């Protein structure tokens, strides 16, 4: 309502016209029948619920929940969610709000932002338009939608919580406190939204407009307090759009180019975990001592997420990507070590070894 009074550079007559319009608009609002707040909120909630997705995948052991949340971002079934161990399986299931269950394909993910995009084979789905997402301000009233604790199944609706944005801050300012590769800005919420299974849920304002995505559970290493937060869509949009458009992956024709002496795992001294799945996460099982990989500082349990600029989705994918590179070239690799992203440079064979502390 107050938008009518937004100060904009307008000429004097324009300003009067704006003022007159605003007065008329306010007068009309005063006589127009008001939709009861409760009804409009129920309608807002129903509209958002239709876009929420329950995601099931790997986990289910040692306190690792095998479920998380997500939301539809295209009519053709693109689902935005967080990148996590839950997606480390060939059998990701996505259950829509109407109870329809789909096998979901992992399109791609961005380890730096800890987001992933899934795709289900369906059309004409209700969805959030990322371009229409709005920024939130401190004090903005918010609703959080998620399948926390996996409490809803089938066509049961996701959980809704309410609160306000308490502060907008950057997580990297809290480095060493919250272990996460995400170092962008976050909305810190006064509601307890980030429960098990809630990651990937949608944060909206009371108009149902998308503000952000609920992040993974984070606990402060200093005081053990759990953080309730969401990542603003502004931080995620470019990466998500690149994934949906396929720009984050090498084009098909590039894949045809193979060098005369392609690199491979053996030449680097790397052994990955047994490749038993269609999409086995490329975890390092063993680094042969004295090998180029060992010299570069790669370690067992590192998860390879980037090779050069390209995202690596699986053991198979890493082998393919290596095969497109010259064996003796310098390789840049990004690995996930614990909750940190670490960049590693694998020097060409025969290059002088760096002094290590």
């Amino acid at each position: 309502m107050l938008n009518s009074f937004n100060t904009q550079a307008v000429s004097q007559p324009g300003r009067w016209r704006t003022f007159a319009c605003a007065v008329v608009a306010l007068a009309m609002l005063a006589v127009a029948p008001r939709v009861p707040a409760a009804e409009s909120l129920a309608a807002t909630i129903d509209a958002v619920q239709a876009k929420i997705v329950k995601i099931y995948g790997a986990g289910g052991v040692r306190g690792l929940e095998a479920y998380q949340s997500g939301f539809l971002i295209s009519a053709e079934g693109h689902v935005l969610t967080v990148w996590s161990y839950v997606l480390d399986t060939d059998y990701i299931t996505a259950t829509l709000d109407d109870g329809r269950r789909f096998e979901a394909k992992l399109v791609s993910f961005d380890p730096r932002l800890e987001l992933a995009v899934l795709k289900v084979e369906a059309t004409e789905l209700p969805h959030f338009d990322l371009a229409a997402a709005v920024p939130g301000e401190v004090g903005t009233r918010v609703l959080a939608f998620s399948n926390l604790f996996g409490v809803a199944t089938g066509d049961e609706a996701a959980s809704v919580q309410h609160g306000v944005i308490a502060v907008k801050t950057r997580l990297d300012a809290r480095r060493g406190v919250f272990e996460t590769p995400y170092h962008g800005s976050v909305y810190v919420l006064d509601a307890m939204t980030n429960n098990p299974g809630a990651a990937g849920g949608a944060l909206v304002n009371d108009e149902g407009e998308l503000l952000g995505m609920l992040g993974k559970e984070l606990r402060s290493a200093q005081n053990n307090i759990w953080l309730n937060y969401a990542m603003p869509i502004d931080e995620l949009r470019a990466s998500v759009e690149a994934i949906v458009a396929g720009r984050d992956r090498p084009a098909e024709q590039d894949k045809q180019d193979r060098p005369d002496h392609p690199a491979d795992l053996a030449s680097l001294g790397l052994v990955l975990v047994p490749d038993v799945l269609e999409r086995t996460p490329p975890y390092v099982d063993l680094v042969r001592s004295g090998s180029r990989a060992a010299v570069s500082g790669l370690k067992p349990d590192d998860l390879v997420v980037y090779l050069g600029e390209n995202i690596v989705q699986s053991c198979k994918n890493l082998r393919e990507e290596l095969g497109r590179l010259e064996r003796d070239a310098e390789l840049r690799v990004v690995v996930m070590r614990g909750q940190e992203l670490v960049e590693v440079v694998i020097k060409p064979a025969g290059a002088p070894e760096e002094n290590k502390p």
Partner: protein
Amino acid sequence: MTQRIAWLTLVCLLCCAPAWAQVDPDVQNAEADRVAVVERASRSAVAIFANGGQGGGSGVVISPDGYALSNFHVTNEAGKHMQCGMADGKLYEAVIVGIDPTGDVALIKLLGREDFPAAELADSDQVQVGDWCFTIGNPFLLATDLQPTVAYGVISGVHRYQYPAGTILEYADCLQADAAINPGNSGGPMYDAQGRLIGINGRGSFEKRGRVNVGVGYAISINQIKNFLGHLKSGRLVDHATLGASVRSDVDRRVVVDDILEQSDAYRRGLRYGDEVVRFGGRDVNTVNAFKNALGIFPQGWRVPLVFRHRDETFEVLVRLRGVHSQAELNEMLVGGPKVEPEKGPEKKPEKDKEPAPGEPKPDRMPAGHPHQEAPMPEVVKRHFIERPGYVNYYFNELNRDRVWKALVARGDYAGLSGAWTVLGTAGMGDLVEYTLTEDSATIKLASGELTVGLDGELSARLDPPGSGGLLAAMGLWRRFLVSGVAQFGNVSYWGTAPLEGHEGLCDVLLGVYRDVECRFYFDPADGQLAAMELIADEDDDPCELYFHDYHEVQGRMFPRRIEVRHGDIVYQSLDCKEFKFEERAAK
């Protein structure tokens, strides 16, 4: 310096004053309304103190004579009586009335007033996600000054299912809210924005963050409790129900039967392995949780509508629900008290009926005393407590049994009709039927002949005429019940309330045990008349059902013009009663 601070404060106040004055009157009114609603709702809240203040929880008064709801896991700590603090700053003595360990509900009665501020019960099926709600209670047992704590939030989910711990503390069809529910809030009220009671708080999802609120709390819906309230007032440990069948979701997202007990009523009504459960208890069943939610709100023994698809045909039937626990298990719970560890992780609930092992002795007495130390019972509590095996508090059973009986005989006492009864009437195509009912026998005379059943031995072997489920025994016991009354019939107790086809609301039900059969007597909630009776010879068989219609006065007492006899899926007889004749005295 002090002057300067004073001056600055004055400036601040002057600056703030206009800001306050500018607050939209709608906002100010809304706030004032909310404060008033919370104040009113707070008056009904109860802080329960158990074990001399070492434990406890919350509760809420639901009637002016002091009936109050709490959680079973709260009152179980307290035992037979407890002290309850209210917002008026007073402590009241309270006595246990009935418990529902499976639903985690307990009914207590506060004593000493007839004008307690009672909460208004809402229709919790109308609650929607996003509705404002608030919890009132005694979190962390903070209310040492008896003033309750209030937390506001929104409804996060409705019709939630939370798995039980073993076979108790199952939260079916519950409400989920982000209003704070902490330890100590258990048993307290969850209100809607208008201050109407929508549920009883009792559980939260806690897991790794410790036992404090994480914005995910659950309340037992008040509609579920309404179904159990009559049973709770019977002073018993009341049981939840099972269909006698378990279900699963198939690939087409249909909910299908994957196991069924052949002794169950559902099986007798035609439900089979692989059939699709379409609706249950008036609700669509789309998920296993939806089925569990629909089932979890009913007490044992109710008849509930079931719609199922067998092959390509759809059937709509009424099914009688069996108990989750065997009588032996219930008695065991009464004796020792079930182990209560609320807010634990999910455990799979066995859906199949639990049968007592053949020959298993049925414990028939409750040992004196509760497992933990109880304070001596105050006089006012003693006047409202009767210990009896098989009951939590027999005082309330007797109270309600006598209430129902008095309402029945208020329009004519049958005690004087102790001679033989003759009922002349027609059935079927106008065939003449004559019943002769005496203290010892029941006889039916038809054109084709006559048949007599004696009432002096074991009745379960004399369920004549064949195919009726025991019509003659039922007619004989109908007369006996009316003439002998609740004191002389056999062992008569108040069972609770249950729905009955063709009647609005819930009927009071008395349970009479005569020799080896059980009779259930249903009373019309509108006028207190005997509306129906069932003779149950074996829980695994269909009972004989008598429905009494169109009461009119005969010799100063009320008698039905029509008696409909049903057994299983058939109407065995529809008797139009033309004449009642009564002998002066019992023929010896």
